[in-house]
């Protein structure tokens, strides 16, 4: 599988009369984009806003972010706007540095439980911006209103259909027929067989509407570990549906640019051989399923003839167990492992960091703590809604989105856990 990625960098965005790329400046025809999104009649309103890095702004009610990509010859975002066909080969254009973010106030129909579309807040400026995947992107934000008679699964699908449709349209309109700034090839070419082989054991979370991960448009709730080609991940096979866990999710744009995959590709043939990706699910509700996952995932890593493996997980709580049991089985099979994780630690940093441990996890990379309380400052501009919603367990409490906003911990901050190591945050013993 050979994927040619043609990158068209975007360093500025503006509204314009037609969607085009002028150098690295993306102009967006907002009416055309909104009309396109509204071809899905589940969407009753679509506002298009642009938000730039460093702006004194906050984006709230974030549902997900997609990097604009267009597969030359058709087939972008299979399972969403194209037929289901394995992604990851051929030519894909991407607007590097841009992101389509979809925001919507989704219904809070229950008082709590894991499948609640919680508040996802993205800070564009200040120290917390370093934890926000949107802070470095030129953001094209779709603020949607959905029909109020939709069941949860339809709401879920409507927002992701909107973003993928918009993302493909922008990439195509801006780059079709144009020359890219850079072209990179992603291919697992044969390399020196004496190089150590490294597998990426990639654990996602998927538990139904608002808490799922989509693979070619289908929920991965029942996923038993499988092998995928890394190009599929880069090329839109995975869409993130984890609105329920803002900090502890991997937005689609992060999947499309997964830094572990990119890093292993960079080193492929130089110091290591990238053996492939084992895709797994965590947070199963029974111990038996957790053991099944560990056995299956470690078996697949062995079938990839891995000498080493990097393991990442997603979500929180008992989801860590699948990953660590898998790590344990890998180490027992002689596969050397590194585990990437965020930490708890309590508000003062003196509480237990992880929910679970295995003694074999002797090489851990930490991406920082979720537990520190934060105060989000007042901002000049909010996009997505004028209010945020907290406390679903009492039916929801609204607060002004402009701020200041006091949060007990960082759960509501979009994408901050950096499960796949996308930011530079970490944590050390003090």
């Amino acid at each position, binding site marked *: 599988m050979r994927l040619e990625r043609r990158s068209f960098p975007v360093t500025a965005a503006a509204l314009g009369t037609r969607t085009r790329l002028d150098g690295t400046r993306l102009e967006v025809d907002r009416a055309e984009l909104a009309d396109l999104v509204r071809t899905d009649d589940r969407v009753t309103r679509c506002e298009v806003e642009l938000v730039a890095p460093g702006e004194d702004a906050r984006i709230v009610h974030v549902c997900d972010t997609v990097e604009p990509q267009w597969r030359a010859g058709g087939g972008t975002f299979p399972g969403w706007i194209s037929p289901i066909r394995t992604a990851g080969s051929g030519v894909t254009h991407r607007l590097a540095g841009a992101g389509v973010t979809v925001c919507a106030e989704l219904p809070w129909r229950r008082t709590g439980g894991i499948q609640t579309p919680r508040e996802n807040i993205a800070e564009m400026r200040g120290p917390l911006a370093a934890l926000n995947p949107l802070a470095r992107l030129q953001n094209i934000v779709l603020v949607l209103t959905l029909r109020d008679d939709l069941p949860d699964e339809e709401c879920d699908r409507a927002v992701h259909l909107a973003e993928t449709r918009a993302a493909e349209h922008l990439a195509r309109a801006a780059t079709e027929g144009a020359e890219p700034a850079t072209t990179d090839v992603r291919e697992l070419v044969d390399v020196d067989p004496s190089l150590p082989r490294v597998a990426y054991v990639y654990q996602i979370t998927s538990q139904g509407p608002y808490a799922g991960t989509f693979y070619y448009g289908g929920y991965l709730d029942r996923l038993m570990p499988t092998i995928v080609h890394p190009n599929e991940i880069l090329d839109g096979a995975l869409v993130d549906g984890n609105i329920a866990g803002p900090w502890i999710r991997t937005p689609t744009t992060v999947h499309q640019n997964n830094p572990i995959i990119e890093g292993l590709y960079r080193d492929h043939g130089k110091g290591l051989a990238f053996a492939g990706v084992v895709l797994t699910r965590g947070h199963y*509700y*029974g*111990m038996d399923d957790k053991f099944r996952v560990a056995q299956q995932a470690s078996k697949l890593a062995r079938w990839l003839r891995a000498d080493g493996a990097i393991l990442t997980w997603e979500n929180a709580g008992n989801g860590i167990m699948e990953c660590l049991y898998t790590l344990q089985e890998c180490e027992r099979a002689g596969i050397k492992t590194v585990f990437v994780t965020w930490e708890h630690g309590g508000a003062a940093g003196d509480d237990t960091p992880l929910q679970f441990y295995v003694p074999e996890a002797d090489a851990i990379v930490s991406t920082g703590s979720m537990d520190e309380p934060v105060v989000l400052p007042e901002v000049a501009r909010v996009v997505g809604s004028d209010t945020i919603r907290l406390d679903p367990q009492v039916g929801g409490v609204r607060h002004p989105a402009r701020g200041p906003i006091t949060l007990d911990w960082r759960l509501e901050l979009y994408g901050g856990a950096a499960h796949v190591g996308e930011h530079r945050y970490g944590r050390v013993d003090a």
Partner: protein
Amino acid sequence: MRANRIVAGVRIPHPVSNPAVAKDREIEVRTAFAKRALEVLATPVEGPTVFTVDHPGAR
């Protein structure tokens, strides 16, 4: 800190019950769990010990 007397539950959202069995029989699963828990309270242990419930619906 590790618990000393542990009874292995069914699944996280319903640790002591099994909604997959017939409705009128689900109470039997819960009763099996309740009885086992009481037995375990009356059992000496030396450290963290996992006990299981011997009932077909308990898994």
